């Protein structure tokens, strides 16, 4: 079992998944990638990662719904959640916190911004 933090990345855009996973690996994290909300919920429950990075707009369940469901089950109630939003308004941010997310990042984000948020939530190096 690796002692590196495991981070679940859920986004239906493969390029963004690859970008985030690339950055996580540079931070010495294990990245597990899925492409929809239902799969994100299943993997988060099964793996109990150290962090879940969820896109807001995903098929099956959106990032808000996945966050709410994670908070509702004992096994994942304390899992740190970072939401990615491409919306320009503040309403997504308010809904993110209302759903139980720990933090959010607006798209497009810089590698430094993502690194800082991940580090704050899992204490990963780099």
């Amino acid at each position: 079992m690796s002692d590196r933090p495991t981070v679940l990345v859920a986004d239906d855009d493969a390029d963004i998944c690859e970008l985030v996973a690339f950055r996580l690996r540079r931070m010495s994290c294990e990245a597990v990638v899925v492409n929809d909300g239902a799969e994100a919920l299943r993997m988060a429950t099964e793996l109990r990662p150290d962090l879940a990075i969820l896109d807001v707009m995903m098929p099956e369940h959106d990032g808000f719904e996945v966050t709410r469901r994670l908070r509702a089950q004992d096994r994942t109630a304390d899992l740190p959640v970072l939401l990615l939003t491409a919306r320009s308004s503040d309403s997504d941010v308010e809904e993110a916190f209302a759903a139980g997310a720990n933090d959010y990042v607006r798209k497009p984000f810089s590698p430094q911004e993502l690194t800082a948020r991940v580090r704050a939530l899992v204490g990963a190096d780099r």
Partner: protein
Amino acid sequence: MSELKRLEDEVQEQIEALERLRERLASAGGEPRTAIAGATSHADLEGEFLELLSHEVRTPLTSTIGYLDLMLAGDAGELTGEQQHCVAVARRGASRVLQLITDLVVVARSEAGWLSFAPQMVDLVPIVAEAAEIADTSTVDVSVDTDLPSAVEVPADPDALRHLMISLVGRAVRQARPGGEVEVRLTRTGGQALTEIEHSGRPLPHSEGAALSDIMAREARAVADAVEGGGLELASAKAVVEAFGGRLWGAGDPYDGTRLSVEIPTADSEEWSVPANRAGADHE
């Protein structure tokens, strides 16, 4: 290198397509033929459409900007000086697309009466200092000087205020004469925080057959008109400043340069109030 050229061309095409779209939407009139979720007027429809467009553009931009940043950071291998320059140019182009779509949404929201912010007390000084600090002078011979007090608190949205100042200082740097300078001053007078952003002028173009006075008059009119809708960037800035209960105006001439002034009521100002048609009117 051909891939970089293709990326630059793609970014430029996106900028031009968005400009054309904006012009079409601005010139469209009458009743909308289709309805987007609750839109009841042309302004509502335009605002809804631009919100949707913003989301759709931000997603591919996340990949574009993200991978360019990785290259600039050397995470994808060491770049030569020329490659570094090319990637930096492409990155700036991507930033312009993002700026453009952000400005489009702000202006559309303002026109539809949706633009509102939840104000909190914000110290304007570090925000202005940061805008001056991060202004991109990497490819232009322009210096940025500041004259700032210790603290000036205003009731505003910190993210929108930061975006506003970065936009205005960045614009001044882009428009300054090569070898010139941008001065950023912040003063507090009579319940108002006044930020002045001044840049040295560009030399007049040498145009055979055109009288110097005609050129000067035309350039002076362009400066005077700039704040009143001459540019999307300034129209967006003006809408944000007015949502804070402040005002934005410009003055200058092509020899001495241009000065943009942003006045925002301070936290203890009796004049400050959220405009009635905007308070709590956030669409979402």
